[in-house]
């Protein structure tokens, strides 16, 4: 089993309003809605805030109603994570210096949102991340470069090339995923026992 203290894994915090920014963009998914509900009361009325949320999640936790109920002036609800991340890209392309980005949801969602933010050179003092929901790992197949978001086991079959991948503890921020390497490369068919590791 490979569960250890993963040094490369990002440290997630609780979202806090950052008064040094001038524009505040919240983007979340699934259980990330809990973070938005919690942080809503501390947001000043005068702040320029927009929110993007999608109820799509591995766990089926759709908080669209609860998030809507918090009373945002600018809220966009979208059906899928892909839609939400696409809108993030479009909003950042039009944004100006002074923005603060707040991301909440699964690790996979946060990681991909950070990849989008990195295209606009958003740095750690412009971006906050709160992990909510499943600890499933996003895993990148080092052989065929396909990623999947929903990995809860130590060994997983790659959707791209069908190899059995051993999920390594090394997290790549650039790829926003844990590395998956062929588990039975030396002894084909000889695989460790499959276990649920990342609930």
């Amino acid at each position, binding site marked *: 089993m490979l569960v250890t203290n993963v040094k490369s894994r990002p440290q997630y915090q609780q979202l806090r309003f950052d008064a*040094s*920014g*001038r*524009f505040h963009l919240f983007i979340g998914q699934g259980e990330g809605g809990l973070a938005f509900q919690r942080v809503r009361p501390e947001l000043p009325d005068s702040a320029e805030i927009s929110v993007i949320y999608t109820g799509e999640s591995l766990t089926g936790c759709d908080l669209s109603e609860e998030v809507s109920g918090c009373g945002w002036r600018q809220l966009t609800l979208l059906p899928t994570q892909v839609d939400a991340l696409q809108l993030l890209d479009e909003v*950042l392309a039009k*944004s*100006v*210096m*002074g*923005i*603060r980005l707040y991301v909440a949801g699964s690790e996979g969602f946060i990681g991909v949102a950070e990849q989008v933010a*990195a295209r*606009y*050179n*958003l*740095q*750690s*003092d*412009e971006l906050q991340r709160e992990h909510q929901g499943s600890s499933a790992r996003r895993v990148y197949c080092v052989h065929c470069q396909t990623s999947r978001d929903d990995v809860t086991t130590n060994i997983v079959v790659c959707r791209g090339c069908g190899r059995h991948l051993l999920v390594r503890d090394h997290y790549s921020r650039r790829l926003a995923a844990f590395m998956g390497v062929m588990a039975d490369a030396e002894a084909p068919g000889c695989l460790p026992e499959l276990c649920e590791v990342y609930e």
Partner: protein
Amino acid sequence: MKTVDSIEVVVTAIEEVTPLIKRFTLRQIAGGGLPPFSGGCHVTVVMRGGERTFRNPYSLLSSPRNLDSYEIAVRRDDQGRGGSLFMHESVTVGTRLEISHPINLFPLSKLARKQILIAGGVGITPILAMIDDLSAGPISWELHYSMRGHEHAFFGNWLTGQHGDRVRLYDTSAGQRIDFATLVARQPLGTHLYVCGPGPMIADALASARAAGWPESHLHVEQFAPPPAGEAFEVHLATSGKTVQVSAEQSLLEALEAAGIEAPYLCRSGACGRCELNVVELDGELLHNDHWLTAEDRLSGTKIMPCVSRSKCRRLVLDW
């Protein structure tokens, strides 16, 4: 132990580019290429002027693509401590000098989407080499350069000739000022701001950017100010058992060096953190002038940056 390797150079040309600024061309005595550097680098020039040795940092302004020689520019400061006067009056073509390897405490962000450079007066020097780097790359950039009167416009005119519209000049003698609030508003994400110039200009630029919500990671500043003078005090080095007198005009680091102690340093302007020393005992207060120590460090009273900071006391004991 030598903390910084030096390079022996000879002055091969001196040019008066404005009434106050001389440009010096330096070549390596040993021959061959000088060490590579990037835009924003500086070297520390060691000036052995009679009783007192000055070590002043000067930005490299020449093209980082030319390693046959380095160029620095020195603004004459008649009220200064003497380093710039030494360069202006005692250094001639053929003078041998010792310089440090180039160090960059003002580097360009490689991931920026847009670069805004702001310079005032002789603060243009690091930015000249930065522009040389930028003009060879894909990132969009612009320069706002403020100077006093046409006789001080040498670098500004040269840059305008090279880069046209990317360069905007402001003549303060004609009342022209950079409007920082407008400049920092509505800049695309990933814009970085670089400021080198007089203290008040840096403060204005930073205040405007922060008010517009710019995060610190996008703000870059360089300022070479001489270490502030103060009152004389005595410093005792606990490990070596040596005692050194620091005069009112000397920095703590300079006093240590004058006593033959090779204390570590890099930037000599309180920015890099290399010279940090631990305070063991003090019968007064520390006067911090650096940009390195955190608020907690300062409160603790146990750390000092000897390149720019001093102490108002009779006796300071350092762990060295």
